[in-house]
């Protein structure tokens, strides 16, 4: 059975070109990039090239790129660095729809370290309450950290506008751009951000490699203290093969950005319109305009997400759910709850996240499978009768 993969906000297929770039460095070229010999420097040179390609994707300088192990490490490093830079400032600000890499870190800092945490809410479309955010800024604020785009709904926060206002007040600004990278243009200079996180496996590079951009001239306190690697900003021998793969992935992502915003977006819109047309009791979550081109978060009344996912899985279709039952928690996703998505559709929300590998034929198969799955589940649901919610 062919797999139809529409879970690209969870992880992506490693691009063939990326694998090809990496392969020699698994085998013959195993030198340590820090070594004082040509054999090692062959790897070092590839890492320098990769650093340049990563920098190019976000319009940064290569010196501003720190390789990490993942997006979570990048997020944690950024926040801890800011707290070390301003030990007397006790307020930290984020939103209530962040990825757990930030949200749980902030909760830890509140509960265990006594920080005054402000969780800025979103409205029903998933857009940030900017007035509340700006009102929360104070002299006591060490850092504002906001995601550029939401992983569940794809809703994009106006990061350049926010970052400018925050940094004007002398407050550090970090953005988790893990979902935005490769899907919308990113220019760290124009966006006024101090720090920015990326993750390789969301842009067709392998898992286990991340990036933290740190603006030149900014005080940085390393999270991982060790050797001189990454100019002393992140100790530990480099994950050389993955860094080389990430460089290639960034080069490809830059080339494919227009495709993401035309072909992939059209496919997503086609899937959305077909599901809305062919299935009653359906609603799309999030700001329809201000949204990543590849993401569709869509709720089906009176059915439960895990059940839908298992029926999709039987047909080889990979997607995600905002349902509690897939996560081991009991409430639907914190993002959907923050947006006050009604329970009737929150429990039955499915996230389809596309890539340039998807086709129209795949979308047609998804629609056909979804029509059948929703009909089957609603036939046994006590909350669905005669074509409507009861």
């Amino acid at each position: 059975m062919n797999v139809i993969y529409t879970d690209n906000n969870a992880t992506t297929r490693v691009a063939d070109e990326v694998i090809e770039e990496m392969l020699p460095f698994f085998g013959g070229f195993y030198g340590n990039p820090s070594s004082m010999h040509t054999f090692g420097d062959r790897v070092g040179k590839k890492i320098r090239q990769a650093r340049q390609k990563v920098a190019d994707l976000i319009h940064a300088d290569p010196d501003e790129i720190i390789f990490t192990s993942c997006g979570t490490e990048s997020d944690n490093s950024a926040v801890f660095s800011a707290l070390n830079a301003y030990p007397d400032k006790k307020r930290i600000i984020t939103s209530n729809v962040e990825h757990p890499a930030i949200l749980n870190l902030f909760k830890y800092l509140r509960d265990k370290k006594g920080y005054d945490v402000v969780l800025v809410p979103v409205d029903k479309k998933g857009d940030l309450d900017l007035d509340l955010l700006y009102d929360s800024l104070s002299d006591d604020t060490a850092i504002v950290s906001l995601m550029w785009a939401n992983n569940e709904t794809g809703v994009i926060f106006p990061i350049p506008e926010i970052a400018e206002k925050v940094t004007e007040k002398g407050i550090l600004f970090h953005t988790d751009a893990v979902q935005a990278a490769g899907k919308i243009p990113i220019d760290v200079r124009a966006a006024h951000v101090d720090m920015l996180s990326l993750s390789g496996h969301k842009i067709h590079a392998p898992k286990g490699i991340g990036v933290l951009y740190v603006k030149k001239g900014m005080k940085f306190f390393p999270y991982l203290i060790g050797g001189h690697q990454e100019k002393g900003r992140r100790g530990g021998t480099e994950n050389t093969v993955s860094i080389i793969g990430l460089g290639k992935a960034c080069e490809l992502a830059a080339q494919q950005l227009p495709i993401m915003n035309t072909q992939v977006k059209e496919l997503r819109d086609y899937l959305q319109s077909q599901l809305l047309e062919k299935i009653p009791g359906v609603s799309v979550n999030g700001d329809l305009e201000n949204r990543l081109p590849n993401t569709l978060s869509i709720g089906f009344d009176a059915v439960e997400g895990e059940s839908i996912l298992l029926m999709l899985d039987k047909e080889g279709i990979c997607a995600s759910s905002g349902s509690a039952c897939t996560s081991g928690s009991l409430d639907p996703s914190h993002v959907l709850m923050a947006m006050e998505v009604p329970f009737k559709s929150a429990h039955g929300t499915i996230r389809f996240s596309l890539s340039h590998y998807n086709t129209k034929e795949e979308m047609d198969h998804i629609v056909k499978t979804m029509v059948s799955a929703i009909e089957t589940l609603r036939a046994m649901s006590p909350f669905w009768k005669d074509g409507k919610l009861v």
Partner: protein
Amino acid sequence: MWEYTDKVKDHFMHPRNVGELKDANAVGETGSLNCGDALKLFLKVDENERIVDASFMTFGCASAVASSSALTEIVKGMTLDEAAKVTNGDIADYLGGLPKEKMHCSVMGKSALQKAIADYRGIQIMEKPGEMVCECFEVTDLEIIDAVKANGLETTEDVTNYLKAGGGCGKCLDRIEEVIASVKAEG
């Protein structure tokens, strides 16, 4: 992905006894749309109080559907007295086990069965006897005590897995711990 037994998968993909039983004379409902799980159990009981047919309608995950399907298979042919003794453990065992985080699905089955039996016998079940402990999922201390005793639950996490209590805002976790301690103190 959850590790479901083949029997859970089978009962989810091919649920037995689905739909409204038109000539049911006992109905038990539990759960809600907000909770994410709900079960409506239909029983047809003959004059000797024997369950001659059973069906269900369920909103929920694979475990909820499979538990409901299993419940209907278990109780068919039983007398109401026999059915009254069916526990959530019996439902889980019938399916070859459930992930611990999904045990509340089997508890939902037991609850719907008790309500259906009470419905047939015309017994008014007081909706929520006892003191409300978990406001999010409307679980009382008596329900927690019953679950702790019946299933040998040890921790607040166990209680959440079985009853959902404490799985929302978490404000009641201390109280749940007190209830568990009180059961342990009783021996």
